[in-house]
């Protein structure tokens, strides 16, 4: 497969790590890029939002995620005005559905990504995206917390692996996510170590099935 880089798709480089690390943690922490903590990233804010409709927690989530959702939509071909409107929409959904967020199932950025992706399909692609059967998660509080943290750590390792990917390959993965490759062009290999995360999610599903049966 040959991939040309047209000007509109030029890779603009990742945002500086300082910006990525921007997160609202009330307790002091030097190494903000890692979750050596006992709480997954943004879990406190999500809980405050879900339990108390806490507006300062929402403001912190908004400050971090709204600009990222806007960037995702613009890189997917949306005009800045529409991207801004949809980013606000996505954050409004996060407010409304905060009580449905389950940290054992996904990290917050994964969850926000799925909301933003679904809005993008609705609005830009004008089609629906059928979802699989909903699974009732969250059976064992203790295992859930360990799962949530482990999933967060794996997600961070994946983010790090993404930055180490050769540029050509990384651009290809980005193009797939920004809707710039047709489903026939999407390659079978991303070149990323996805196996560990998959195994972890798989174990979670097995445990869940065990509880359901």
């Amino acid at each position: 497969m040959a991939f040309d880089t047209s000007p509109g798709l030029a890779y603009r480089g990742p945002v500086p790590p300082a910006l990525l690390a921007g997160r609202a943690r009330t307790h002091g922490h030097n190494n903000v890029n890692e979750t050596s903590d006992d709480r997954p990233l943004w879990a406190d804010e999500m809980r405050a939002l879900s339990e108390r409709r806490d507006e300062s927690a929402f403001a912190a989530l908004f400050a971090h995620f709204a600009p990222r959702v806007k960037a995702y939509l613009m890189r997917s071909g949306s005009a800045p005005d529409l991207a801004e409107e949809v980013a606000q929409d996505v954050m409004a959904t996060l407010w409304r559905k905060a009580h449905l967020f389950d940290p054992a199932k996904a990290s917050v950025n994964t969850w926000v990504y799925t909301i933003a992706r679904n809005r993008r399909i609705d609005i830009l692609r004008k089609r629906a995206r059928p979802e699989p059967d909903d699974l009732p998660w969250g059976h064992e509080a203790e295992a859930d917390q360990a799962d949530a943290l482990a999933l967060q750590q794996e997600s961070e390792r994946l983010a790090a692996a993404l930055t180490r990917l050769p540029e050509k390959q990384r651009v290809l993965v980005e193009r797939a996510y920004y809707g710039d490759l047709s489903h026939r062009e999407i390659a079978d290999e991303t070149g990323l170590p996805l196996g560990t995360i998959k195994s972890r999610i798989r174990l979670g599903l097995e445990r869940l099935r065990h509880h359901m049966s």
Partner: protein
Amino acid sequence: MPDPARINHHLTESLLLAYATGELPEAFSIAVAAHLSLCDECRARSMTFDVLGGALLETHAEVLSDGALAATLARVRSEGPAPTPRTPVPADVLPAPVRGYVGGGLDAVRWRPLGGGVKQAILYRDEHATARLLSIAAGAAVPDHGHAGTEITLVLAGAFSDGIGRFGPGDVELADEDVDHQPVADPGGDCICLAATDARLRFHSFVPRLAGQIFGI
């Protein structure tokens, strides 16, 4: 639901990635979502691609206009939480995403006979692809056909065999333009499948070709 451990034929990485990135035609998404409802292995692989989407989301940011937060808060402040989704309906041969398109369970499907013990019901069609349910009577054959495009067939009940293999509940068969096949339902019972195709099927004999024109398959 079928025993996930007995599913032998799975979705490809590229289909799962296309589903995760929102690039699949809707008809294919129905088939993928239906398989993910039955198969934990593919569901875990699919969720892994969502994790990658979340990691990518972190890499770029665009400044929002002043007042964006205030505007969003003004919209939602007075709203209560969204309703919690209802608990899943009792098990049916049709997984939830398929029931959504049928408007009910297997009993609600409005079949149209195609002849030779085969019935179909179109679930969804747009300019990109079509999703349909097929019911093949025990021992009956779907007319021998090739494909102008891609076809995903997911078995929901019963089983069929063709030159490629045997496919039971939860299994998916992926066929492209190189595949000519003639699925035959197992003698044990009717085989119910969900098929998504991204171009019209080509049949190899005159009568089914005519049927293809009439029934749009």
